[in-house]
C-alpha cells in the first residue's frame, strides 16, 4: 500500500524538481550563448537525479524488506513456539501475513493470530523506514542535481546519456530475461541429469515417467518416442501440408493474381496467422480428429483412436501456411523483374519461368521460411494437447495417437507436483532440448536469409 504512495511521492518530487530547476536555469540566461544547455534540459537533468536514485533505493528496499520483517517477527516471544518443520512453519507465517494485511480474518492456526500483531508492527515499521530512505535518496539526488545548475554545465549531454542508458536498460531487460530462462532451464535440467544419464534420456525408447521410482529411473525416461512424435507431427505431417500449400499460394499471389485480388487474398491468408492456437486446437480435436477416426474406421482399422498424429499434424500444417507463404512471397518478389523478363523473352512460359528461374533464385528464402515454420511447429502446444494424445509411441501409423515434447511438458508440470522429483525435472530437460533445436533452426534460417538479401542488394 505504502509502496504506491512512495512512488507517487517520488514522481511528484521529480515534477517539482523539473519545474524548479528549469525556473532557476532561466534566471541564469543573460543572452544568446550564455547557457550551455536550454533550461528544459536542466529541468530533465534535475528530474532524473531525483527519480532514478529514489527508484533504485525503492527496488533495493523492496527486495530486502521481507527478510528484515521475518527476522524481527522471529525475535517475538510467540515465535519460539513455531514448529521446526519447514512446510508447517512457512504456512503459519503465510497465514500470519494474511491476517496482518486483513485484520479480523479467522486464523486456522492459533499461532498465526498471535504472530499477526508483531508482523503487522514490523511491517509498518519497516515500510516507514523504507519510505524515509527513498525520500532521502530523492532529496540527496535532487540536491546534487540542483548544485549542477550553472551556466556552463552540459545538462543536455548528460540528459542524452541518461536517455541512452534508460533505453539500454529496457533492451537489456528482455535479453536478461531470456538468459534467466536459459539459466533456469539448464540448472533444472542439470538436476535431472544427475539422476538420469543424458545418454539414456536422448536414446532410450521407453517413456513412462509415472513408473519412474526407485533405482529404475533411467529406463523410464527414454525420450525418443517424444522426439519422434514431435518430428512426425510438426516437421513431417504439418510440413507436407504447409510447404506445398504455402508455396503454391505464394506463387499464385506473386505471379498470377491481379493486384486487386492480391490486395484481398494476402491479408486473408495472414489472418490464419492471427487465429489463436487454442482455436486451432479445438478445431483439430472436435472437427478434424473425428473425421480422421471415421476415415480410419472406413479403411478397416480396428478401434481407431479419436486422437491421432494426423489430425494434429494437418491442423498444424494449416496454421503454419502463412509462415511459409509469406516468406516465400517475400523472396519470390525479391527476385528482380529483369530476370523474369529475361526468361519470358526467351520464349519460356510462365510456369517454366517460375520453375526454372524464380524458384531457384528464391530458394534460400523459401528454405529459411520453412525452417522458421518447423521451429514454430515443433514448439506448438495447444493443438497437440487437444488432438494428438498422450501415448508415447514409436509408430509410423498417422492414425495412431502420438505425443510430443510440448505435450509431455504440459503433462509433467500441471497439477500438484513435487518440484524436486525426476518426473517433474524431466520437463526441464525436454524444454532444454526443444529450446536448443529451435534455436539452431532459427539461427540457420536467419543466416540463410541474410546471405540471400546480400545477393540482390
Amino acid at each position: 500500500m505504502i509502496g504506491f504512495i512512495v512512488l507517487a511521492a517520488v514522481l511528484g518530487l521529480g515534477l517539482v524538481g523539473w519545474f524548479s530547476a528549469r525556473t532557476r536555469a532561466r534566471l541564469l540566461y543573460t543572452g544568446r550563448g550564455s547557457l550551455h544547455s536550454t533550461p528544459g534540459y536542466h529541468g530533465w537533468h534535475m528530474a532524473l537525479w531525483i527519480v532514478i536514485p529514489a527508484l533504485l533505493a525503492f527496488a533495493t528496499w523492496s527486495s530486502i524488506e521481507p527478510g528484515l520483517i521475518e527476522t524481527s517477527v522471529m525475535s517475538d516471544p510467540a515465535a519460539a513456539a513455531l514448529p521446526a518443520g519447514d512446510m508447517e512453519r512457512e504456512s503459519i507465517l503465510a497465514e500470519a501475513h494474511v491476517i496482518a494485511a486483513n485484520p479480523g480474518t479467522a486464523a486456522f492456526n492459533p499461532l498465526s493470530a498471535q504472530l499477526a500483531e508483531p508482523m503487522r508492527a514490523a511491517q509498518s515499521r519497516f515500510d516507514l523506514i523504507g519510505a524515509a530512505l527513498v525520500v532521502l535518496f530523492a532529496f540527496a539526488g535532487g540536491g546534487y542535481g540542483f548544485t549542477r545548475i550553472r551556466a556552463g554545465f552540459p545538462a543536455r549531454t548528460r540528459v542524452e546519456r541518461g536517455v541512452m542508458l534508460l533505453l539500454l536498460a529496457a533492451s537489456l531487460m528482455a535479453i536478461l530475461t531470456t538468459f534467466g530462462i536459459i539459466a533456469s532451464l539448464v540448472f533444472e535440467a542439470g538436476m535431472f541429469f544427475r539422476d538420469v544419464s543424458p545418454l539414456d534420456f536422448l536414446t532410450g525408447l521407453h517413456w513412462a515417467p509415472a513408473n519412474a521410482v526407485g533405482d529404475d529411473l533411467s529406463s523410464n525416461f527414454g525420450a525418443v518416442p517424444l522426439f519422434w512424435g514431435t518430428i512426425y507431427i510438426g516437421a513431417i505431417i504439418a510440413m507436407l501440408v504447409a510447404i506445398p500449400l504455402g508455396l503454391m499460394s505464394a506463387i499464385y499471389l506473386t505471379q498470377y493474381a491481379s493486384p486487386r485480388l492480391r490486395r484481398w487474398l494476402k491479408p486473408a491468408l495472414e489472418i490464419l496467422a492471427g487465429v489463436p492456437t487454442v482455436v486451432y486446437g479445438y478445431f483439430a480435436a472436435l472437427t478434424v480428429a473425428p473425421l480422421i477416426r471415421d476415415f480410419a474406421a472406413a479403411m478397416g482399422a480396428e478401434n481407431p483412436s479419436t486422437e491421432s498424429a494426423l489430425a494434429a499434424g494437418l491442423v498444424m500444417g494449416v496454421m503454419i501456411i502463412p509462415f511459409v507463404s509469406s516468406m516465400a512471397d517475400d523472396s519470390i518478389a525479391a527476385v528482380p523483374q529483369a530476370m523474369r523478363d529475361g526468361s519470358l523473352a526467351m520464349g519460356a512460359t510462365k510456369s517454366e519461368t517460375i520453375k526454372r528461374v524464380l524458384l531457384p533464385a528464391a530458394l534460400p528464402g523459401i528454405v529459411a521460411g520453412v525452417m522458421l515454420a518447423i521451429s514454430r511447429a515443433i514448439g506448438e502446444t495447444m493443438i497437440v494437447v487437444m488432438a494428438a494424445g498422450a501415448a508415447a509411441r514409436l509408430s509410423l501409423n498417422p492414425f495412431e495417437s502420438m505425443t510430443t515434447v510440448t505435450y509431455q511438458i504440459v503433462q509433467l508440470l500441471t497439477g500438484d507436483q513435487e518440484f524436486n522429483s525426476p518426473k517433474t525435472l524431466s520437463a526441464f530437460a525436454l524444454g532444454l532440448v526443444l529450446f536448443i533445436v529451435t534455436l539452431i533452426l532459427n539461427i540457420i534460417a536467419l543466416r540463410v536469409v541474410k546471405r540471400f538479401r546480400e545477393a540482390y542488394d
Partner: protein
Amino acid sequence: MSETPKLTARNVDVWYGPKKAIDNVSIDIDNGLVTAFIGPSGCGKSTFLRSLNRMNDTIADARVTGEIKLDGEDIYAGTMDVVALRARVGMVFQKPNPFPKSIFENVAYGPRIHGLAQGKGEMDLIVEKALIRAGLWDEVKDRLTDAGTALSGGQQQRLCIARAIAVSPEVILMDEPCSALDPIATAKIEELIDELKDNYAIVIVTHSMQQAARVSQRTAFFHLGSMVEYGETSQVFTNPREERTKDYITGRYG
C-alpha cells in the same frame, strides 16, 4: 527498301491503361541490317520495341492496337503462339540479367525449353557456337560451370546476347544494351552487333546518338509517342527532313 521487310508495323497504338504511349507508328524493319530507335527519355521507343515481341503482355494494363507482322504473319492474332514468337524474336535488356545459374546453363536455357538439342553432345555444340558468336567463348571456355552472375558487366551482357542467339532467332531486339556498361565493354558490344547483323534483323534502342550513328544503317526518331522520322542513318543524321529531328540531333533538347 529492297526485299520484303522482316517486320512490318502499321498504325500501331500502345496504351497503358488510359494513357496513350505510342501514337500511330508504322515502320518496316529489314533483314541483314541494324535499325536504331532514338529519342529523348519517355518518347516511347522502348515501349514500341517491347510490343515487337509482345513483352508488353507481361504488363497488366498494356494494350496494343494496329497491326504488327513478322514475315507477313500478324503477331497479335489469336492464333499466334507467344512462346514461338519470342523464340523467333529474341531480346537483350538494358541491365545484364543472367539467370542465377552457371554460364553453360544460362546459354542452354533457351534451347532446353524449346527442345532444340537431342542429347548432351548437341547441347554442348549449341552452347559453344552461341558463345563463340557472342565473342565470349575464349574468356569463359575454361569455366563454363561458374555462375553467370560472377562475370563482369560487359561479359554478362555478352552472355545475355549468347543466350538470345542460342535459340537461333530471326530478329534480335536490344533495349539500350550498353547503358549499364563502361566504354570498353560498350565498344565490344557494338563490334558484336556489327558482326551479327548479317544473319539477323537487329533493332536497337539507344540513348546515345553517337552509338546509333556508329552501329545502325537505319534510324527512327521518336518523340512524344510518335515516330517523327525514319530513314537511312546517314540521311537522318546529316540531312534530317523534319525540324524536330534536327533540333534533337543538334542537341537543342532531349
